[in-house]
């Protein structure tokens, strides 16, 4: 497929420039620096299972928004969730780090397993769950404070950091989000002065700073221009070498460009879930076929 070559596009030169690379980088940066391993998953290739849902049902009051979804999300892959507005894909995404708890009147049934352990069990530690399963939202929403303080916000919730520890986290996270070179001289300026695309990468950096294992992205590019969108997509492909990424998107091209597997949601049901190439080229279900060809939605 022609599109696959674009997903293998080399990572931004400023990241691969070894002169810029700090010593003692964490694994994920090293992985991100290796452009040879960023291709999409091929049929038959299976990464470790990261998240599994079993008969997941989510209700808003009496309305059943998610109607029994069974799905397996794998480590070091990008999973795209597509479907028309109101199909429940965002609701599903928020159930993976229990952000639905913040919406009054929601009720969740079934199972969500993270590394085989239920995250719906009573007594689940939401703080540690959300540190393991980070989230980036639709609109870039940095805190109204400096770039630096945005990045250390998460780590500082858990522990007092020395100046050097904080500096190190800031640099590592901003490099991880491909933002370091643009902002390294302005770390103490307000994050609100950045462009929309930079703000969104800052939000990704902020999430990376707490060291997540899974990154949930809820339409992260819908408020961005094409150039900024392209940079985020590049970044996702770099990051998947270390994390599982789940992205909700309305953009068919985005799903086909970046993701390894795609799930198609319709009216609260997961209609089809397969390798992205399969979903876009030869889907089993005719509703999927109609949707990816742009016939409704």
């Amino acid at each position, binding site marked *: 497929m022609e599109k696959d070559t674009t997903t293998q596009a080399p990572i931004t030169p400023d990241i691969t420039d070894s002169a810029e690379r700090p010593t003692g980088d964490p694994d994920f940066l090293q992985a991100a620096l290796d452009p040879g391993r960023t291709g999409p998953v091929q049929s038959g290739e299976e990464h470790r299972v990261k998240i599994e849902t079993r008969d997941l049902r989510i209700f808003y009051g009496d309305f059943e928004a998610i109607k029994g979804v069974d799905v397996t999300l794998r480590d070091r892959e990008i999973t795209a969730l597509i479907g028309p507005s109101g199909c429940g894909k965002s609701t599903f995404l928020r159930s993976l780090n229990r952000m639905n708890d913040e919406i009054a009147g929601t009720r969740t049934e079934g199972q969500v397993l993270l590394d085989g352990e239920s995250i719906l069990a009573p007594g689940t530690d939401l703080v*540690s769950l*959300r540190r393991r399963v980070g*989230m980036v939202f639709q609109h870039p*929403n940095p805190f109204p*404070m400096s770039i630096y303080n945005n990045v250390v916000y998460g780590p500082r*919730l858990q522990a007092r950091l020395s100046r050097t520890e904080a500096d190190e986290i800031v640099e590592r996270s901003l490099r991880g989000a491909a933002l370091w070179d643009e902002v390294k001289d302005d770390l103490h300026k307000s994050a609100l002065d950045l462009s929309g695309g930079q703000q969104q990468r800052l939000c990704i950096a902020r999430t990376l700073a707490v060291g997540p294992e899974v990154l949930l992205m809820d339409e992260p590019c819908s408020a961005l221009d094409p150039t900024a969108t392209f940079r985020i997509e590049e970044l996702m492909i770099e990051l998947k070498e270390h994390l599982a990424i789940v992205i909700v998107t309305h953009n068919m091209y985005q799903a086909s460009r970046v993701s390894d597997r795609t799930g198609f949601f319709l009216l609260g049901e997961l209609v089809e879930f397969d390798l992205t190439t399969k979903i876009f080229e030869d889907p089993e279900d005719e509703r999927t076929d109609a949707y990816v060809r742009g016939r409704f939605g």
Partner: protein
Amino acid sequence: MKKRVSRVWEWGIERLIQIAGILGIILVILIFFFLLRNSLPILRDFALADLLAGREWRPVREPPRFGMLPLILGSLYVTAGALVISIPLGVATAIFIAEIAPPRAREILKPAVELIAAVPSVVLGFIGLMVVGPWFARSFDDIPVGSFAALGSIMLAFMALPTIVSICEDALYSVPRALVNSSLALGATRWQTITRALLPAARSGLIAACLLGLGRAIGETMTVLMVTGNAAVIPRGLMGFLRPVRTLTATIAAEMGEAAQRSEHFFALFTIGLLLFVITFAVNTIADLIIRRSEKDIA
């Protein structure tokens, strides 16, 4: 023909709205000049330093003394005390209403707090004078009489509360939900989210709320007139809170009736009015500037 009528009509409506808008500004300017004109005899005959820093307010003695320091300090004590009580209480109430209370409790609480503003100040003064003050005097040996500065503070705090709660709550509510969710998604507890993300984001609005509460407290007259004892003495130290004082506002209210028209005493009371006008105008302007800045921050 019909088109023409409607154009005249449009023009008329526009002018009417314009006049209504300008009228507010004109009235404020007129009030300022009215106060200034009636203060001129005093400002001409007495040095400003003697007025503001003079330690004696004896308007009917010969020669009269118009030292406003006891009154200024009286207002300062009562207002500062009111803010010490009402700001923590008000901000905490606003946080509870905006963030913690279940939706149904919120629907009841906010109007309930705002309803406090509907209690006439004379009724509050009456309660302070008849119930709260005597109770304090009976219960604490350090409080000789049931009218003292801190009692005014308590009653004023109660009056400033609706202003502070209502504007704080608006400020907290206007913080984008996504910001709060981002904080929670980074593994913050609810309390951490409130103190580290929500309050800093709403900071300007909270400061403005407190300043408007201050403006409300410093201008209040009837309640403080009734409960603070009306002794124009300079309050000293912390004990000053437990002794009678007299505020700028209460002085005008208490003495305007007995001051002879166009006497020096009469004009001196206008000078107090001018001072109050300048203070509240400054406080409100600062609050307004801060609110405007906060709107820009959030956008």
